[in-house]
Structure formats: structure tokens, C-alpha cells
């Protein structure tokens, strides 16, 4: 080792010594002087996870409300809003749980809040109860007719377009405008109160449309007639024709 250094020119030795000194300083600082909170990644992750887990909760969760508010829970349990969490409308309530007497959750009673879900929006799934806020009892608070915990409408809807207004509007501009929904769909009474579990029927055979549209049939004067044996091969009619729309297309 000493020989090697003797053979090197003095400038190389100076440079090497300088670099070694720098490297040693860096090493010492990094390994021994720095606290482990800056170096130990496992420790950092652990403390970060704990910090995250210790954050305050703002929403108490639907289960807790029933602990004190059993009456409202019972009213809600069988209505359309049974799956709706209390805090969806009443806002974050953990502070109320921590201090029930002094901190009260909000209680939206104006029209605008119910409208977040129930104002008509063409992108909402079909059949979802929606109203036009301009024409549906304007300026009247929703809660004056609908109990928010069991919001059954004051009268059971008589016609399909209470919920299926979009289909009704499309149909009203089509050739089938004068056909009522029940001509093709039978809706059990229960569909009005359990819409997703009890569904209306739909026709399942070509002959159903053929009752009016087959050239042989005696119904339907002036309707477009086709020969059921040759028209449309093996398909059922609604695989090509959308019966609600104009021109059936």
C-alpha cells in the first residue's frame, strides 16, 4: 500500500486523500449522526400508518344512530329510504355522538336537498323516482307531503309515467303514443312499492307483436303489416325494433 502511494504523483495523493475524507464524512453523518426517524423506512411507514389511522372520524356510521333514535329507525326500516344512511341527509354526526346534548346534526328541510337525488336528470337509471322541481308543487317544502324517513308518496302513483316519465316522453312522440303501457307490460301491484324486486313483464314471443302487425291478423287497420313467416328470420321483433320510439327504431 505504501509503495503504491509512493509511486503516485503528489497531486494524485492529495486528490485521493480529499475524496476519501469527503466520503468518510458523508458515511459517518449518514450512518451515525442522523436519527433513525430519518433513515429507517420501516419505522417511517409504521408511524405514517399510525398517523393516518389516528385521524378524526366525522361520520359516525348508520349503526350508531339507532342506539338512541329507535323510533326513526323503525319508521325508516320498511320504507323506500331503508337503505339510506342517516348521515346522507343529516350530515357528519360523529361530533353529535361525542356530545349529543350540545352538538346537533343538520336537518335539511328545504326543497334543494331532496333535489340532489330526486330532481329529474336524464342520466339517472330508468325508474328512479324523479320530479321536475319547476312543476312539481313548486315552492312547497318536500317534507310537507313526504316523510323523509318513510317517503311514500301521498298517493300511490296511478300511471307508469310517475317514475318512467322519460320512456313516456319518448313514446308520446312515437306511433305507439296511444297505446298504454299495460297493453304490452303487465305490472303487478307490488311493483309500485317494491320496484326493483317485482318487475313488470315483457312480451316474449314474436306472435305478440304479430297480433297487430301480422298481415293475416284482423286487428289493427292502417298499421304496418308484415308477413311473420318471412320477416326478420329467427329474431324476436324487439331485437331490431325499439317499440317506444318513433318509427320503432
Amino acid at each position: 500500500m505504501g509503495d503504491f502511494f509512493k509511486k503516485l504523483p503528489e497531486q494524485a495523493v492529495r486528490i485521493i486523500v480529499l475524496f476519501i475524507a469527503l466520503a468518510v464524512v458523508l458515511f459517518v453523518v449518514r450512518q451515525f449522526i442522523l436519527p433513525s426517524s430519518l433513515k429507517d423506512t420501516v419505522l417511517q411507514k409504521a408511524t405514517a400508518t399510525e398517523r393516518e389511522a389516528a385521524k378524526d372520524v366525522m361520520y359516525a356510521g348508520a349503526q350508531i344512530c339507532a342506539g338512541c333514535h329507535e323510533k326513526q329507525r323503525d319508521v325508516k326500516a320498511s320504507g323506500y329510504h331503508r337503505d339510506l344512511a342517516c348521515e346522507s341527509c343529516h350530515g357528519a354526526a360523529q361530533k353529535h355522538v361525542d356530545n349529543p346534548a350540545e352538538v346537533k346534526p343538520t336537518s335539511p328541510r328545504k326543497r334543494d336537498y331532496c333535489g340532489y337525488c330526486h330532481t329529474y336528470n336524464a342520466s339517472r337509471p330508468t325508474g328512479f323516482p324523479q320530479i321536475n322541481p319547476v312543476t312539481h308543487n313548486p315552492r312547497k317544502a318536500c317534507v310537507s307531503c313526504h316523510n323523509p324517513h318513510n317517503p311514500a308518496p301521498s298517493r300511490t302513483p296511478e300511471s307508469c309515467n310517475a317514475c318512467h316519465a322519460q320512456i313516456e316522453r319518448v313514446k308520446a312522440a312515437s306511433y305507439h303514443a296511444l297505446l298504454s303501457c299495460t297493453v304490452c307490460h303487465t305490472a303487478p301491484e307490488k311493483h309500485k312499492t317494491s320496484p326493483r324486486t317485482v318487475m313488470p313483464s315483457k312480451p316474449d314471443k314474436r306472435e305478440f307483436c304479430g297480433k297487430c302487425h301480422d298481415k293475416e291478423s284482423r286487428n289493427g287497420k292502417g298499421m304496418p303489416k308484415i308477413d311473420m313467416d318471412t320477416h326478420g328470420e329467427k329474431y324476436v321483433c324487439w331485437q331490431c325494433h325499439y317499440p317506444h320510439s318513433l318509427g320503432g327504431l
Partner: protein
Amino acid sequence: MDRRNFLKHLGLVISSGGIAGGISADAWAKIINKDYDTAKHFYGMGVDVDKCIGCGRCMQACKTENSVPDLPFYYRTWVERYIIKTDKSILVKTITMNNSDEPSDVSAERDMLRSFFVPKLCNQCDHPPCVQVCPVGATFKTEDGVILVDAKRCIGCRYCIQACPYGARYLHPETRVADKCTFCYHRLVKGLLPACVEVCPTQARIFGDMKSIASPLGRFTRMHKIHVLKPALNTDPKVYYANLDGEVN
């Protein structure tokens, strides 16, 4: 049981556990909550696009629960509205939380072919590009499948925001570090649901623990054909969409 008291004292348990230094690699998991073992959970979320009504309650609840700035430029979760018209043109926008756009726009439906709402959030990828690119390891994957950001370590370089294919991350304007949805990790460790799942009125969001034998997510993935966002990027997202339209990206 005094769930309220339990929640009150939990903070003490967590902070006292966290103070202990020199935590070993497996012991750190247990400290979060003496009843909570990160190894026993693996979280995911299911989203049923057909159920989303675009009410925006999830967006509002998330902002409240997680102190997200109340501006329309920072979201941990948001809902997109897609309108696909008969001329194949597609209109997409992020909904507002107060129905301020297109309240009862009946004319929008006239040439609509398909229209729906899609909730979006951090996909908590199992192969996360954001974790891969963080230069200081501030963002990391927990054992229970949640991607967290260590707000005390993040240097605000924004590389993770660039790397996320889903636009799920943002730079918090006050703390100047990266922020994103954490599946409400602070609620999960206490056995609560994330705030967005809690308030969703139609159960469009399903939360589940994939290590649990009976979980809503388990049934969800059995009964629906599942799609994830941008599968070609191989990020292994853990938000599973049912009834997702191909136009959503």
C-alpha cells in the same frame, strides 16, 4: 356496548402505541389498534355503474370526512357523467355537488343513446405506478391493501401525480404535499365503512374485505362481470366496476 366511549379512547391507545420506538417490521402492524391486524384484511371496492344516480353525496361526504379543500379542483373521489348520443358523439363532465348543472334538462334526452354516471376514485392498485416513482418512498402500500401518503415525508415533487393514470391524486394547496383517497383508512381500522360508501343512497359503492369469507365485495364479484379501468396498464386496480361502458376511461 359503549361504542362511543370506545371510539373516544381509541385515540389514546393509538398515540401511546405509536410513541414506542424501535418498532420491528411485524410488530408495527399490531400497534394501530390492539384489535386490528393488518395481515387479516385486504380491501377493495365495487362500483355498480347502473346504480349510480349522480347525486354527489359521496363527493360531499369525502370532503367533509377527509378535510379536502372545498373547491372544485381537488377531489379524492368524483362522479363523471357520460352522455353518448345517437350520432356517436360523447359528452363527459364531472358533476357538481349541488346539482347546479342541467337541473331538469329534458331536451338532453332527445338524442341520447346511452347515459350514465361513473364514480371514480383512487383504485388502490396492487401494482401501483405512484409508489414505484416516489423518490423518497413517501407513498407506500400497506399490508391491508391501501396506498397511503406519508404527509410528513412527501417533498411535493409531484411525480406520483404524473404517474397516476386515473387522475386520482392532487397536490394539497395548504400542506403542499400529495394527497388522495385512502379508502378512509382511519375508518377502516375502526371497523367503519369509507365515508363515500356510507352515504351512497343506492349502494352503487360496495366495500369489502377480500380476506373476509363473507363480504359484500365477495358477492359483488361473483354476481357481476367485473371490469377495471385501464387494464392494459397492468396496475391491478382494486376498484371493480360492474356494468362499465367501454367509453369510460
